[in-house]
């Protein structure tokens, strides 16, 4: 499940923040712009949005995304997975009811660990 989550979250279209139908020129331009912003340390470039939430972004990811989208076969694969808008769809993580919290003092209190 962790692999699937990573694969969807790190889709090149989400990393670059562009539409699946963007032209090659637009991809390169957006990529270079992000690299410049990251080099300047601008905060709006440090994160990107996906259906699984907000993730951090760095220069290596941007370069990887650009190289992935240069190859037609790999780009087609990524396009099929990036059909959803880049807005978080759900909170990540299973909902845990409040009463399921444990009793961390159990081992000490009941004689199975040093008090």
């Amino acid at each position, binding site marked *: 499940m962790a*692999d699937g989550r990573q694969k969807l979250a790190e889709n090149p279209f989400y990393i670059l923040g562009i539409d699946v139908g963007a032209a090659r020129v637009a991809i390169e331009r957006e990529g270079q712009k992000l690299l410049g912003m990251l080099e300047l340390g601008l905060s709006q470039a440090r994160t990107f949005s996906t259906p699984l939430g907000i993730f951090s972004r760095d220069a290596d990811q941007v370069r990887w995304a650009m190289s992935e989208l240069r190859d037609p076969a790999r780009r087609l*694969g990524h396009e099929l997975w990036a059909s959803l808008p880049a807005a978080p769809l*759900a909170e990540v993580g*299973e909902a845990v009811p409040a009463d399921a919290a444990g009793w961390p*003092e*159990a081992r000490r209190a009941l004689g199975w660990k040093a*008090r």
Partner: protein
Amino acid sequence: MFPVGAIGVAVYLATRQSQNGPRRPIDPGTLVLMITGLAGIIHLIVIAQRQQFGVVDFTVDVVLLLVSAPWFFARRVFIPLGLVRIAYFFGWLAAIRWRLDRRGGAALAAAWALCHRRKPAPALAAFVERRLDGCVPLRGAAVTAAGLLCAARGDLVGARQILSSVKWLSPTICPPDAALYATEWLAVDAAADGRWRELVAMEVRGRTALFLVAVAKRLLGMQPSRTPLVWHWIMARDRLETWPLMRRAWAVSPATPEAQPLEPPVVDGDEAERALAAHAWLLARGPRSVDIAAVAKRWDEALESPALRRRAAERALSLAAPSGESALQAMKSAVESDLAAALAGADGALPALGSGVLGHAVGQVRNQLLTDVETLSAELRQRALDKRALRGIDEWREVIALRAACDLALLRGGPELMRLAFAKVHPDACKLAVWLWNDRKERALANSLFTWLHDLASTVEDADAEALQAKNVACGAI
């Protein structure tokens, strides 16, 4: 000051004939009890004659008291203080309590004391490990001691595996106290981590564990009445320490319906977008919170939809990519892998084998379950063929791993999947068990394996294997 009756009971226990064999020799623990009793009486007579009671008399009485009730003092003084070697000595003195496994019992006391050390003590851990190596053949108290040693070293996963396995050992070679302490540790461990459902499903013994189960039922909304909670709290020990937990369980509001897996959200868009939304939902919320079958159904609709195929073909042409069909195949494989991972992380039985992405995902999970069982089984067989012996506890850990894999295969795939695995497991595990019994004299471990294979043969309805293992089980564990 010392009950003569205790001496009489000790003599009786030490000298009575066992049901299956010749007259047993007096074991050291019983002998010590007899001697201290006798010494106590003699000392009493001497004091009565002298009509005075000095410091020496007091010291002698204290020593006699310590030696006459060794487990009482080990449990309440030396173990909580983390005095490992002293706890070992007093555990050894308490031989009556450990029956046939006095060395294991002594190691149990030492390992328990090690758990109470505030700082890591590698030399003392090595001491306990050496004592465990001397427990040949391996029996119930030694297995419990090995579990507690893992816990003392911070390996809680290993401790859980080993202590959960104590119940598989025959009662003839597992002292009741060893089984009780193993169960209690597991219950306390589950309570510490908040694994309340697991706690409710445990077969527990002992007043503390029963109280924790009552708490778990209240917290999960399974027990509206507070009466069992209060009753078990009163009967348990350490009432002061458990008072905060008692209050928490008391205050829980009435039962809420158990959460059902959620249906994925419905989004506007074509079949592909709906399937992707469901998939993202599953990846975000996890397999226990989302209906995996519903997600798979959306993918079947999407992957068969003409709109998606047309879009893939058009984009492939536009991008000069090799083919839209290969991209769709890669997408389908990725979906099946993600669904397989989700099924592997879910609880309970797998859906039935079928068609579509769910059927393929189920097939992947079943194959993995079978592979895991067969790999472990083959390793056991090869080791038995090569006569590569391990320490008793390490043999037992390998058996635990195989049983865990088989239990998982049975839980997820049902008797039908287990029938496939049994054809491999039965001869391999039987080979190991026979070697353990005949050559290595590890009869307790062998008996547990035979018993398990017998039960498994019954589950998969293999009458020949069941009859064979019934004969092996009848050979006993001693």
